């Protein structure tokens, strides 16, 4: 009963089994993988871009690249980490191609206005949250790409160190060290911004 239409894929299959089917050209398996990881990939990408349209473009590129290069996927790692690695690489490429920090801040301001709808719980609280957001992302986008990715993966998405190590292709110890350095750099950027909004004296 799970397969409601011809060519539907068994949803109990693991990612790696689906990847094997997709490698053979099974479109239903590709679709299932896409539906499973569309939103997780989007979250990572959106944290980097803060723009829905651009994030969706990158998500599309991520899956196109993944499906085209499925033959290079080694089942030594999980499909999800492999996919996230592709996503991070594409985010890095985008960040290098365009200097769009200012544009993102402008979009952030637009986004802030959009949140001010009547159902917001508390205008004061919302304003404080927005100030936090603005300061947070302003500091985040001042970081180098490799630091920013670690902050996103570890502190925003709360991934465990082992998964991050698999995504970045390095050891857990190295990831811990790099996260610590990224946090130090991030706090250095964040401190004057928080001081500006009166969060710290």
């Amino acid at each position, binding site marked *: 009963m799970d397969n409601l239409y011809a060519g539907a894929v068994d949803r109990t299959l693991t990612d790696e089994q689906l990847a094997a089917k997709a490698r053979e050209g099974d479109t239903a398996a590709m679709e299932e993988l*896409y539906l499973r990881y569309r939103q997780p990939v989007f979250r990572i990408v959106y944290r980097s871009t803060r723009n829905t349209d651009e994030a969706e473009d990158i998500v599309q590129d991520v899956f196109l690249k993944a499906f085209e290069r499925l033959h290079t996927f080694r089942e030594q790692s999980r499909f999800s980490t492999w996919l996230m690695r592709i996503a991070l690489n594409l985010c890095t490429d985008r960040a290098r191609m365009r200097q769009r920090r200012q544009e993102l801040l402008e979009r952030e301001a637009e986004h802030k206005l959009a949140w001010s709808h009547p159902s917001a719980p508390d205008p004061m609280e919302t304003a404080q949250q927005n100030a*936090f957001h603005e300061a947070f992302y302003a500091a985040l986008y001042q970081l180098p790409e490799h630091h920013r990715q670690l902050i996103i993966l570890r502190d925003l998405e709360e991934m465990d160190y082992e998964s991050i190590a698999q995504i970045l292709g390095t050891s857990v110890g190295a990831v811990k060290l790099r996260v610590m350095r990224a946090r130090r750099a991030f706090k250095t950027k964040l401190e004057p911004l928080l001081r500006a909004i009166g969060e710290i004296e």
Partner: protein
Amino acid sequence: MKHLCRELERHLESEAEHLPDALRAHLAGCVKCQRAWRLHRAYQRTLHAARSEPMPACELPWSRVQAQLAARTVSRRPLVWVRPALGWGMAVAVVLAIGAALLPWGNQQPLQGETLAQAQRSEPRVASAPPKADTTRDAAGAVSIEAQGVAPASIELCVPDARVVAQATPRMCDSVRLQSPAPDPPPTDAYAARLRNPEVPARRPADAVVGAPAFGSVSEPPFTVASLPLTPFGVNDSATGVEYLPISYGSLSSYREGSSNEAIIGSF
């Protein structure tokens, strides 16, 4: 105190939830650690706010991705055929380039024992020279050439030029000069003459030197030197006092003393 400052810093970086009592006591009296602590707390708050940020849903439909995937597959399909073709094309080009690079060397080094006729066939410019070297000796009395003392290595091989002639000719006997015959009649005239007088030999005497310049004058009109006997060494015709030098086909570097295919053939 510094030890506790470092301990607090390590504690904050370790993502631990609770602060130990020892560090808490230190924090109450250390301004630097208080500042780090406040920054850490602010960082935690902003992080919490960022995590709780409403995340928009990705509304990218699968159909769009699928269409893009199909379009890319179609556009990249020719490459599957082009790549092997390019590979084969490159291989053929490399082989041809190697062959073209080696071919001139093979042509410049005739085999030992190659006959004059073979050499003439292999050398296009030789075809304009009078044939048959053996006839040269028969009529050698008409021309006396003395070129003693000219080293074989100094002779320009393959197609001698005017400079080589100038080296060889000053040693000729003064009594015998090269006669500059009239220019070659057109082939039609020769053919007509032969028709009129069958006794006229069809071939020009091999020793005839056509268009030979006067000695000492390099800028004279060009002439053609008849072929000489194929001998490994110079031929000294004691009857006529003529000595022929061994001249080889091929480049100077390909000259080997004692080879059997020396001859003077060429046009100037």
